[in-house]
């Protein structure tokens, strides 16, 4: 299977880079010692006809120095999750009550716009998808990095310029002293994304939210940027939330992976576990659709159909219409994340097939009960570990 090839790659990388962290993963299930903790996040957008539930009960946490990969097709709510964390959800969108984003023990969802300004940048910084539109074309790259520097480090004038050059060198831009006074359109795509990363680093953040940072770049550049990110992470002890639709990219950067589908996290596991042993039918479908170099010209499978746009609270499995393993109950019971089997606390899946080691009927009842218990609040949370 294609996933095996990827998993080997993952193994190599992990053994070299972050052995210590992978050891911690199992132990760190309690919510308190995580740097960023998202719980039961629901972000909705009100339109004239309906309310779109773009993010519908998402929970995850990121520890210090860890990279969480958030993966899903476009329209699954990944970017809205990122924007919700950054407090960038504008009208007509809003976070429903009960949503919680905690950073360093501080609840962010209650903050005013002013309060958020103190978290953005220095606490959590963001790297956006398209580096060309992230940089304002009318100012030099240096000017924009210095803007962040003056805000977060109080630097100005020559000090700021020197620091900006230093940052550009850190992100691997050759001839930084000259390029600092160039305009974004004079940079190549990869260089631009490096500059954007330098801009985020200028704020000296603890958490870096990367929203599809390599999607707009070609493959070789993509690999360089990923390498840069993991170097910077090691150097600065950054925690990274890495958002992408690309399972191949996730394999290279993430310590843990959360798979999103239609506003919910359907499976969450350490990266090796997920690739070697995917449990949710959707994750399996995703992994089968990655092109693999080793396997040659085998036909790629695709998942038929599209991600639905949820507009009411779920009463069934949102993946059921596309699921090859769907059975009757899938239409009636909304699955919640549960450990995939006895003892596998760090591997959860929101599917009625799990826990695998329980009789089917009991498992379905368990999902149904969790859904009824304190619905809609609990539906979709990573109940498996915290409840």
């Amino acid at each position, binding site marked *: 299977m294609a996933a095996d090839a990827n998993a080997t790659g993952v193994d190599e990388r992990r053994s070299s880079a972050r052995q210590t962290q992978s050891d911690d993963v199992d132990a760190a299930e309690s919510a308190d010692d995580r740097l960023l903790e998202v719980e039961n996040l629901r972000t909705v957008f009100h339109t004239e006809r309906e309310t779109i539930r773009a993010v519908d009960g998402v929970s995850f946490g990121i520890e210090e120095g860890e990279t969480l990969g958030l993966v899903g097709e476009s329209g699954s709510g990944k970017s809205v999750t990122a*924007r919700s964390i*950054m407090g*960038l959800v*504008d*009208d007509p969108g809003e976070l429903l009550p009960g949503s919680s984003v905690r950073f360093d023990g501080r609840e962010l969802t209650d903050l005013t*716009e002013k309060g958020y*300004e*103190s*978290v*953005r*940048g*220095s606490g959590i*910084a*963001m790297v*956006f*998808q*398209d580096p060309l*539109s*992230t*940089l*304002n074309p*009318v*100012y*030099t790259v*240096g*000017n924009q990095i210095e*803007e*962040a520097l003056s*805000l*977060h480090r109080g630097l100005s*004038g*020559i*000090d700021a*310029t*020197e*620091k900006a*050059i*230093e940052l550009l060198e850190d992100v691997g831009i050759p001839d930084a*002293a*000259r390029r*600092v*006074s160039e*305009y974004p359109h*004079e940079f190549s795509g990869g260089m631009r994304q490096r500059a*954007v990363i330098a*801009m*985020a680093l*200028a*704020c000296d953040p603890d958490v870096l939210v990367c929203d599809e940072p390599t999607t707009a770049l070609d493959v070789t550049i993509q690999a360089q940027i990923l390498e840069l990110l993991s170097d910077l992470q090691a150097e600065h002890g950054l925690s990274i939330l890495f958002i992408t639709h690309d399972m191949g990219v996730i394999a290279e950067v993430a310590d843990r992976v959360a798979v999103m589908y239609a506003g919910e996290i359907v499976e969450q596991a350490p990266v090796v576990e997920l690739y070697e042993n995917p449990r949710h039918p959707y994750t399996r479908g995703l992994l089968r659709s990655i092109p693999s170099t080793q396997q040659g010209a085998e036909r790629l499978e695709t998942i038929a159909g599209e991600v639905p746009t949820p507009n009411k609270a779920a009463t069934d499995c949102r993946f059921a219409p596309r699921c090859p393993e769907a059975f009757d109950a899938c239409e009636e019971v909304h699955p919640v994340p549960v450990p995939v089997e006895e003892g596998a606390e760090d591997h959860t899946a929101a599917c009625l097939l799990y826990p695998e080691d329980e009789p089917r009927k009991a498992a379905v009842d368990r999902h149904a009960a969790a859904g009824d218990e304190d619905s809609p609040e609990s539906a979709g949370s990573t109940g498996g570990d915290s409840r």
Partner: protein
Amino acid sequence: MSAVDYPVDEDEQTLLERIQDEPGPALKLLAVVVPLFAVEFGAVASLVMSLPWSAVGSALPGFLQGLAGALAGVGDALANLPTLLSRSVIDNSGYQLPSGEWVGTTLGLSPAVAWLLRVLLVYAYGFAWMAVGWWVYLVYRDNYRYADWAPVDDMVNRFRNHSWGLLGLAIIFAFVVLALFAPALGPTTVEANISDPYLHTVEYFDEEAGSVQEIYVGDANRDSQSRGQGGDNVGPLSYDQFGRFHPFGTLPSGKDLFTFMAAGARVSLFIGVLSLLIAGGIAVTFALATAYYKGLVDLGVVIASDSIQSLPQLLFIMLASFVLSGTWLANLYSGGVVLALLFGFTGWPGLWRAVRGPALQVSEREWIDAAKSFGQRPSVTMRKHMLPYVVGYLLIYASLTLGGVIIGVAGLSFLGLGINAPTPEWGRAVSAGQPYVPTQSWHISLIPGIMVVIVVTGFNALGDGIRDAIDPQSDVGTGQQDESAAAGGGA
């Protein structure tokens, strides 16, 4: 790392450095600008000295008063420097002897020719400044700008190929020069001819007495009235019996219409520009705020602007200027300031609507999110990252609105509101000539009326041109042609 000596990237400094590296073109430019400015330096100084400095002076503490007095002396001396465009350089006032010879005018030219020469000189001077402006752009673009290409180059090229916009530019250029140089352009001055005719005299050759006589301008005006059928008439391009040349003829009161129009242009331009500064300032502030915050802020401004737009603007301004008449505010600049304020505060909703779209558009750009994501303050984000994209659109609609303000002011003056007599305003000339439209004194209403139409058309054409230059897709009808023309020009 910090010990290394890096070049600094401050834009101003690099521009300065670039000029230092290659001073040639800049020096050439300076060699033209300095004399051009020097010949009119006296006029600028006298404009500065005409501000109410005495009020400032008396507010100063004692020991500074002496210094201020000395400064004022220097200022006055500078203000009296001869200037190229003063009326005395080419004098058109004099009298004609029975032999046909002119006395008192420059070189003995006839007043008509002398006046025409002066007008040509003034317009040549104005044109020189416009050419210098273009030259500055070229020198900057070719010699000193860091980037080889900037979006503004394409806009300039598109505008250069936009004949309708260029026509507008030409008209507005003519109008602005008329307004700025009004005192030098008229065959006579506002003080001498319109506001204080009994404090000034003219000389003329009295054929009955056979000698040169002096007469108050006011008395002379009584014999140069244009009152249509059965009355006197001094039409366009003709002399009255005192040897005074009237390019546009005279008003029913016998005053010179061209002098009146030139001074009126100044008033119109002042009101137009001041009201636009007010309206534009409010509109841009609101547009940025509504685009940034959306939601309730947007709703609030929508309601405010709708309420203002639901008022009949002119009727409201009439009422308000009536209520305010007699207050100190209404006396500033003969009521011009109060009109500018009223037009500004009632005119912003239109401008705001026009720039709200572009502001919303730019607020969706990712660099706004990026700025927010590293904690930039809203005010800085708006000013630094949104404003530059809105200014162009403001320019378009400002140009279109200016025409409207000029019509509005003329309309109010036509009704006897607005600018207090005797300060000239175009609308009052239209109104004064109204009874004489079907007579030989048709010029009194028609010339100002046509000029209003031309100037307003000019502002609209200029706005169209700027719009097509900034945003070629905006106008489907003419935009298509312009686009292909622009593509050719830009290539």
